[in-house]
């Protein structure tokens, strides 16, 4: 349990950084799409751990200009996030 708490804190910090336009380099997402690389995890409404990276603290979907996700993957992401929301998983 203690590890969980610490990771939650980290998540909040980085989430906060995500939302500002002039974010420090530390918190920036990769320049290339992190989901199009070989061996990248499959975007799926059941994969909550992955989806949680791409929503803000308030549960909004982050824009791709911040996360640098490709257009194709962003469409998949938004669809699967909405499915997960319907099932009350997010």
């Amino acid at each position, binding site marked *: 349990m203690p*590890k969980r708490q610490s990771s939650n804190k980290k998540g909040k910090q980085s989430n906060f950084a995500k939302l500002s336009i002039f974010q420090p380099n530390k918190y920036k997402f990769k320049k290339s799409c992190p989901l199009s690389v070989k061996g990248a995890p499959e975007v799926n409404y059941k994969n909550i*751990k992955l989806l949680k990276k791409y929503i803000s603290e308030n549960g909004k979907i982050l824009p791709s200009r911040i996360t640098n996700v490709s257009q194709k993957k962003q469409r998949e992401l938004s669809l699967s996030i909405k499915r997960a929301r*319907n099932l*009350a*998983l997010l």
Partner: protein
Amino acid sequence: MNLYEHTIIARQDTSPSELKQLTEKYSKIIEKNDGEVVKTENWGLLNLSYLIKKNKKGSYIHFKIKGNGNVVDELEKNEAIDKKLLRYLTVRVKKFDLETIYFGKKEDSEKKESAKN
């Protein structure tokens, strides 16, 4: 024939025997309509991220179905009436992913992580 993933959420106060009845009931409906249940998964009692009909938790049951569209019609018709259920979701997929288990297994890995620390 299409492949479908079908998830239903039951109320938090349904007992395990009732859950079994529910799964049997819906698998029977599937079989009646020339469908085939490839796999059923019980994700267990999970926390809902928001209240649904004053329920904080829900029992998730996941079906992987092979069949025609009328199976889904029949299923959703019955589920919309069922008072034991909170939600349902059907997704058509091109391929079944039978190997990765997102629920249940996740808890194990978390436990392992905490055990390491």
